[in-house]
């Protein structure tokens, strides 16, 4: 061991990592830090009174009452004991990069050697008259869902504000519970921000078949009711009756404590390719962080579990003195009814789409996004084969024959470049 390595190893034994926030990135950090050899203290500070849990099931099985919170824990309580990770429930009020301290809500200060900000994001609030009425909910954490569940027994007519993934997943869950659902969307199609029109058409059809009323291209002026919500007033004067309103209109990253401490923020907390912020020994990961995506050639702030996990792995490596760039292909998933959507890559900048399947019928579809003839992204509904194909095709910058791609009889494996020089690993199949 060189003197430098010895001092790094000594630091890893006696130093303290403080992780602020207790979501997916934080849970991954705990595991990855130990796997990378961090032997020092790990202190995880979250503001919810529970261990890190899976958030994606909140709008699905948890809302439906099919899973309890302790079944959703990302890692079991034992894990934290065995890995010697200390958990605290507290709100972090501020941080002081010069003194290397954070200050908690009740005034206590805590010193750190390495600090990781996994602050997440919070739901964008509806700012309208009546938004504070009982029966109006936002959706982010377990407590939000518990509040919705408390309202469910009396709910007959739900209105979902926002036709994005959260809104549509919630609509599907409520339909499965037998609640009448109307989705209000300002754009002229659902998922407008994230998918091609063909995919929007597919989801609109399925939701209508499932009995959801979709009202597209509508504005909202107020929520009405006497103490408890009874309807949503639209810009055209219509009143949509509702005894339950769920708002899913996006999230706002939690960057304020970083910003106030002088840590660089551009939409998210700015991190380099290994998760370091502009302040020494402060790192960030997950929904709150903005990183430079090489494929897109620009800064991105992604809101997804895989992104949080990937960035956490890079941060853990960086803290332990190893460079591991944030490089994994972004991907996402969304479950609605029996539809399992898997998305590979980012479609921003696409020039054309190639479909495998028909959006007008059935319960499956693959939509490939191409730019300059190459596949850059794919939305795959109940088509895991196409999803896994797309991950490899995007990595290979594959420019496929479009007729073969759309032909359901084509074995997609035959389109992949299998030469050892291009394949990411030896092909032993």
């Amino acid at each position, binding site marked *: 061991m060189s003197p430098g390595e010895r001092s790094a190893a000594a630091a890893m034994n006696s130093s303290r990592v403080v992780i602020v926030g207790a979501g997916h990135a934080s849970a991954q950090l705990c595991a990855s830090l130990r796997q990378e050899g961090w032997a020092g203290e790990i202190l995880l500070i979250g503001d919810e009174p529970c261990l890190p849990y899976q958030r994606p099931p909140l709008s699905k099985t948890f809302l439906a009452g099919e899973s309890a919170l302790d079944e959703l824990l990302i*890692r*079991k309580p034992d894990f934290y004991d065995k890995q010697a990770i200390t958990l605290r429930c507290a709100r972090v009020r501020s941080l002081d990069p010069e003194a290397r301290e954070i200050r908690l809500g009740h005034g206590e200060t805590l010193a750190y050697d390495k600090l990781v900000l996994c602050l997440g994001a919070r739901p964008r609030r509806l700012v309208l008259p009546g938004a504070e009425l009982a029966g109006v909910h936002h959706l982010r954490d377990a407590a939000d869902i518990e509040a919705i569940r408390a309202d469910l027994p009396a709910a007959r007519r739900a209105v979902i504000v926002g036709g994005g993934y959260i809104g549509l997943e919630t609509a599907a869950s409520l339909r499965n519970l037998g609640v009448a659902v109307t989705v209000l969307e300002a754009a002229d199609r659902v998922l407008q921000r994230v998918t091609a029109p063909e995919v929007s058409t597919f989801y609109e059809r399925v939701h209508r078949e499932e009995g959801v009323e979709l009202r597209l291209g509508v504005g909202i002026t107020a929520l009405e009711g006497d103490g408890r919500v009874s309807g949503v007033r639209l810009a055209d004067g219509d009143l949509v009756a509702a005894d339950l309103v769920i708002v899913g209109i996006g999230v706002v990253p939690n960057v304020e404590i970083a910003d106030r401490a002088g840590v660089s923020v551009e939409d998210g907390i700015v991190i380099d390719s290994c998760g370091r912020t502009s302040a020494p020994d402060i790192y960030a990961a997950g929904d709150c962080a903005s990183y430079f995506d090489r494929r897109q050639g620009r800064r991105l702030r992604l809101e997804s579990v895989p992104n949080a996990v990937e960035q956490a792995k890079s941060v853990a490596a960086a803290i332990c003195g190893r460079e591991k760039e944030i490089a994994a292909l972004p*991907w996402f*998933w969304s479950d609605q009814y029996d539809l399992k959507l*898997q998305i590979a890559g980012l479609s921003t900048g696409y020039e054309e789409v190639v479909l495998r399947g028909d959006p007008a019928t059935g319960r499956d579809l693959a939509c490939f996004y191409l730019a300059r003839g190459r596949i850059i992204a794919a939305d795959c509904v109940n088509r895991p084969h196409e999803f*896994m194909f797309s991950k490899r095709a995007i990595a290979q910058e594959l420019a496929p024959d479009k007729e073969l791609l759309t032909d359901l009889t084509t074995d997609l494996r035959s389109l992949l470049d299998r030469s050892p020089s291009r394949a990411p690993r030896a092909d032993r199949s």
Partner: protein
Amino acid sequence: MATVTFVEHDGTVHQVDHDEDGSLMEIATNHAVPGIEGDCGGEAACGTCHVIVTDEWAGTVGPRTGREQQMLEMSPECEANSRLACQVAVSSAMDGLKVRLPEFQM
């Protein structure tokens, strides 16, 4: 108490004692076994918990589902006994279970 053995691609062995009934992926991640990611939390959506069951355990563990098949057959490292660990239910009766890990997760 039952034991599961995970063998990394480079031969590193991780022997895990557990008394949980859960998926093989959960057992691996709860014991910080490197090389099993389980990014999607067990939805068979990510394909990052690929394991290859040793021949002597393949019959007990059983075959992969249609969805797993579609995910796994795109992996260059897919073998006859490949499974997604999140879809393998492990009981304490499966004492001694042994699986290998691929070089890369997809």
